[in-house]
């Protein structure tokens, strides 16, 4: 079983130690092997993340001394860490809108119980597992497989479907296990760490939709978007984290709304 990387960043050293122990306890209860790393300042984690990959899940204090939790969050999102689950930790319940824009997995208020950690870790693991499912397609006689968690959206144009996915800068093969360097691709660099690439294949979008896991939304007869990469929903539009905006066409609005509610509800941990 793969090790899950858990990061903790807080300027309160005692809190870090306690949380680290709690995380280990929670992981044991979930039968999950983990590795933890602790940072005591925003600067140190930002410096380190230039070299090493982002953790899978990061417990991040909001009120760090110099560089705040918001700075760190933004740094992670702009860089390699688009997949990192950020869990904001604070002793206050007052959250700024900026925090919400960084798509945190959750907010926890100190003191944090083992149960809370276990719940959030379980949710993170579940989402990560769902993202690992592979989407297969065929283009030019070659089979390609993309982890669903890296797909942003599909756009169909006539009989062609363009698939847009994130690609990790350091290990390109991770994205398109096929290593095709053919001419049917356009690349757009958005930074050193992550880039967005797009490829085309022939097919019907309806068939694609059937093969995708639950996190994907068909919002138009020519668009499917991955809800994990949505920045903002409105009734008529979906804005993606990469800045593109899609219209939800009229016949799809009600069903999309319903799906969004289900997805967002699943993100809540509604315990009874």
């Amino acid at each position: 079983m793969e090790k899950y990387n858990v990061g903790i960043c807080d300027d309160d050293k005692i809190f870090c130690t306690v949380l680290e122990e709690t995380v280990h306890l929670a992981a044991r209860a979930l039968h999950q092997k983990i590795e933890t790393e602790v940072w005591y300042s925003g600067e140190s984690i930002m410096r380190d993340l230039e070299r090493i990959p982002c953790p899978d899940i990061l417990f991040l204090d909001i009120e760090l001394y110099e560089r705040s939790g918001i700075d760190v969050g933004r740094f992670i999102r702009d860089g390699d860490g688009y997949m990192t689950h950020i869990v904001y930790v604070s002793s206050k319940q007052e959250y700024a809108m900026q925090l919400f824009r960084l798509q945190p997995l959750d907010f926890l208020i100190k003191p944090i119980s083992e149960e809370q950690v276990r719940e959030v870790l379980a949710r993170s693991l579940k989402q990560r597992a769902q993202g690992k499912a592979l989407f297969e397609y065929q283009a030019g006689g070659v089979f390609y497989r993309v982890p669903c968690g890296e797909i942003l959206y599909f756009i169909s144009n006539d009989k062609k479907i363009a698939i847009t996915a994130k690609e990790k800068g350091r290990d390109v093969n991770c994205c398109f296990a096929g290593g095709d360097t053919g001419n049917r691709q356009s690349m757009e660099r958005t930074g050193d760490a992550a880039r967005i690439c797009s490829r085309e294949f022939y097919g019907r979008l309806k068939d694609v939709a059937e093969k995708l896991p639950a996190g994907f939304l068909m919002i138009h007869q020519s668009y499917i978007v991955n809800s994990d990469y949505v920045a903002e929903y409105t009734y008529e539009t979906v804005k993606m984290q990469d800045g593109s905006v899609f219209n939800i066409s009229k016949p799809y609005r009600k069903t999309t709304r319903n799906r969004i509610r289900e997805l967002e509800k699943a993100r809540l941990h509604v315990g009874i």
Partner: protein
Amino acid sequence: MWGYNIDIQGMLIMAIALVLNVILVKKLTEVFAGRRFWLAAALCNVEAACYLIPYFARGRMFYVQEMAAGSFLFLACFFLIRKTGMRSGEAGGLNGRRGAVLFVIPVTGVIALGAMLLGDLEPYGVAALISACILAADLSVFYLYDVLLQNDTHVRQRDIYRRQTDHYRNQLEVIEESQDRIRALRHDMKNHMLHLSAELRQGHCEDALRYLEEMEEELQNPAEYVRTGNREIDSLLNYKMQKAKQVLAVVESDVNVPMELMPKSFDINVILGNLLDNAVEAAQKSERKWMKLTLRADRGVFLIHIANSCEREPEKGGKYFRSTKEEPGEHGIGLQNVRRMVERQNGEIEFACEGEIFSVDVMLYMNEM
């Protein structure tokens, strides 16, 4: 079939009139969507009166010209009604009794007109006059309806203002209490520190820790349940939660909303307030007396989840859950209105019941709030 010749010209006029009428009635139904039966009766009346006035005015001869004249009279009435009815589309409406009184006028009108047609009325001038009077009465009903509705909206709005003032006052008290506690602690800080350092110097770590815990407890204001920094939501929730705590055994809350979220309308206050009232009321009757509120803002979407223990499964009246309250007058603005408010903002609401847990989910788009 009527015993006279119908010329092409007449047919044409009639066809036009018919098409016009159908369109007009359809248009009005859109505007008065909430009160379909009342509208049907009133319109039937207006239409009948419109045709009967020229009919009686010219004696008993039923000519195409009368039909046309009636139709155009109706058209004129339509524009009059349309002018008053513009506001009615979104209104939740009048309560039962006033609605019923309003209903009486068009219904009596229909009866009166029918009686005139069947009875042998001479001279026709009087009949035409009666028809005209009924038409005038009906038109004023539309006007009255509009005024009543306006009045109703004002009353409701004032009620919301009043409630909000209550919430704000409570919030002010909560904040003052919190500050008093901080002030008191700061005042005694020197003593606390002396005590703590003495304990620690003697190596009584456990005692020092316990003392710290006590200090923390002292600092906590039991009336401050939520503290999101969002004025609207804090004041509403602290007020409602305080009330809920008084009558329920367990009240849980899990609230993550941004400070800057400023709902433009009262709607969120009304929606949240009503749903909480309902939940508290139902939980109060149950054995467990439990309620949980979850609020989330994520990706432009605002989610409300309220769950409560309930005594028995609420009956379903058609599509909706029927109220379990005995007094029909005590329903507040009710779930129907909450549903309408949610839908007006393009949101979605769903009720569910599993065993003895009743829950409601609401989703709203933050850009429409």
